[in-house]
């Protein structure tokens, strides 16, 4: 790592490669910055704002902030953590999240980040939207109640699967996920259970049928270790590894 340029994250030097964002470099160095819409396989998107840090006198999303030598970045401050808690609470009240009955529990990034930040209640007034589920597909279930609108499935289906199965429609609080079919039903799209778009959903919207509890609660990803201890797993893959895929 010697000879590489670095920036400061909460006072600790973090080396980075040219073109990396603050988030990517931090994760690669094993430093966790809470995030939801960032995913190592996709171009940063910057919509959830959970990763917001303070740098150069401004608050900015770290997942889209280009790393620069000498940049001083604050992340683990009480003010920023408090903002993150409120953002996570906003996502909880925006949808309908009943964790105890959700088969994603323990594998859910929203839940994990909430635990990480010490979110104990929604605190804000629930919006209780009405979002019917789509069970039309033989192998897949869509439970829109849990959608946090991170667009990862949209990006995965377009960029990796080459299908464009998902998109967003509406705007403001009415923004919602749609599927690529005139009927509006998943069964009429080109999706397959093996698609990247199915794997990438960080919460319990896109679910494979019949395997929900194959791994019992208690032995799931975030039951084993908190999300902050798994930062490296979210780091961008080194180019060599990518080529081999």
């Amino acid at each position, binding site marked *: 790592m010697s000879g590489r340029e670095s920036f400061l994250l909460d006072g600790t030097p973090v080396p980075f490669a040219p073109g990396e964002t603050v988030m990517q470099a931090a994760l690669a160095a094993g430093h966790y910055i809470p995030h939801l819409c960032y995913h190592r396989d996709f171009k940063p998107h910057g919509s959830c704002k959970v990763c917001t840090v303070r740098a150069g006198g401004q608050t900015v999303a770290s997942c889209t902030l280009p790393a620069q030598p000498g940049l001083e970045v604050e992340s683990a401050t009480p003010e920023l953590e408090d903002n993150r808690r409120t953002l996570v609470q906003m996502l909880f009240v925006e949808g309908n999240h009943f964790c105890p009955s959700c088969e994603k529990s323990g594998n859910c990034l929203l839940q994990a980040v909430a635990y990480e930040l010490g979110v104990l209640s929604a605190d804000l007034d629930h919006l209780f939207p009405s979002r019917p589920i789509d069970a039309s597909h033989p192998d897949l279930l869509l439970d829109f109640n849990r959608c946090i609108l991170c667009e990862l499935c949209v990006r995965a289906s377009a960029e990796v699967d080459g299908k464009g199965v998902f998109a967003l429609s509406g705007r403001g*609080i009415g923004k919602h996920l749609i599927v690529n*079919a005139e009927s509006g039903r998943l069964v009429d799209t080109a999706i397959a259970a093996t698609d990247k778009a199915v794997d990438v959903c960080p919460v319990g919207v896109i679910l494979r049928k019949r395997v929900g509890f194959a791994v019992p609660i208690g032995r799931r990803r975030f039951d084993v270790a908190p999300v902050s201890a798994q930062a490296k797993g979210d780091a961008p893959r080194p180019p060599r590894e990518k080529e081999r895929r």
Partner: protein
Amino acid sequence: MAAMPATAPTVDPFLDQVLARHGADASALVQILRDAQARDGWLPPATITYLAARLGVPRARVEGVAGFYAFLYTSPAGRYRVLFADNVVERMAGSEALRERLCTSLWIERGKVSEDGLVSVDTTSCTGMSDQPPSLLVNGRAIAGLDERRVDEIAELVREQVPLDAWPAALFAIDDNVRRRDVLLASDLAPGEALRASIARGQDEALERAGNERSWRERMPALPQGPALTLEEIKHSNLRGRGGAGFMTGLKWEACRTAPGPVRHVVCNADEGEPGTFKDRVLLARHADLVIEGMTVCAYVVGASSGFLYLRAEYEHLLPGLRETLARRRGAGLLGARIAGVPGFDFDIAIHVGAGAYVCGEESALIESLEGKRGIPRNRPPYPVTHGYRQQPTVVNNVETFCAAALVAARGGDWFRSIGTPRSAGTKVLSVAGDCARPGLYEYPFGVTVREVLADCGARDPQAVQVSGPSGICIGAAEFDRRLGFEDLPTAGAFTIFDGSRDMFEVARGYAHFFAHESCGFCTPCRVGTTLLCNAMDKVAEGKGSRHDLARIERLNRLLQASSHCGLGHTACNPVLDTMKRFRPAYERRLCSTQFEPAFDLDGALARARAMTGRDDAGAHLLDESPGAAEAERAR
């Protein structure tokens, strides 16, 4: 891929024509959808499927764009779609009562289409008619200065199913209401004058400056220095953008000029969506030549070949005049190839009509919309000056900025900077509206006090002025000696007056609903936060608010300011916070004395269960401990 459903025709000549008009180019999707909608008044699923297939893009993408814009309909909307402008000035002028009157006389419920599919009546955000409220749009066409007589006339025309083109022209008359002119509104610049001055500048000094200029951008061999020297004048003038942020226009043009890339664009931002403003409407109606001249000067300076005028949908009535101006200028050699006879100076302008989205006034969202996408602000950097339309260098300026730039090009930077104040050169056109005798356009040199403006427009007993619209600042009477300008009160132009009879809490609540309605929904803080803010304000309005709610509003604001993706979210709490600070009693008297009051009505939540079981006895209600409840219970 999903099979084409049996209902979709294999060939649809109407839609094919629409597609052909726009070169079957998916980057013109917003324009294509607008035109496609003209047939049915909405976009039926089969239409979306058809367009997507012909454009070769996923259907969901087309549906996503259609679902973003307020004036694109994915469900039937009535053959006559009446939308009352719903900003505070319109409400103060009685728009709500007139809307109810129209609903009653047409026998319909607000927001629902009549059963025969004939008509719907609903509301829309400010339509830029605050100088002549109340106003409405019927199938996109503006009618202002409404009163009961006019509303009854409209009801009759709808009932008789008179085609819109046969409605009396007088109904659609719009006043310009120019009240005070300064250098801009009084300008008598002849078409081409600023351009010729720019070109002549090069001729004078060409010999001196040749040599040390990069040559590829100066692709006008006869007059090599005109662009560089005109840029110097713009920089020297200290002209700052009139659209809100006040960025130095010269620096913006220079950044675009020096950005690498073979193709550059000039975009005029005529999306004027800030509630209470209408000055761009009048500039485009009366001074279209000046606007286009400014854009052409900009193209000359930065070396752009393509131009767009992004016109908000609400200003469709300006289209014929604008098209006529463009055609006339083409005929006069002021647009097109070899402008003003200069070889290589090729530039033309296309008009792009929006589809109802305030956020598309934000420059990067505007560019997304120009490219046929949902109007979502981009991540920045990079900025439009280097990566704008089609990722190519692009200047985006406000309508008024281009007008001022044309004046600078004609008269010089020294002349311009001698007007106004040291940090705010030139004049500002204000959209004065609300409680005053003479609403309309007022142009002043920067530095004018709020009090002077109030006196000139005949405001009686003013209590507050919303400067620069809800995303600006709300000031009270103690601050009326403050001055408009970047030193003190920056403004994009809106100047909305409230007299002593107005309830400033309701004003702020209206603005909160505006922001929630216009949030693009991209980022969490604004998407959810603006709705939570509305809910909190509504709760206070219902008399259920507590101190806890006010504290929560302040917390929401901090979050929105710190983490929103664009200016909409950053400013969404401004009206509430400003009025909370300056008109606190308007909030206090609505609060209940408790520290906390739940928003959730537990007993109310059981109403459906009661209805289903046909019960309404005491046992079917939760215990209400409020005084009076016990009495009501006994009386039952």
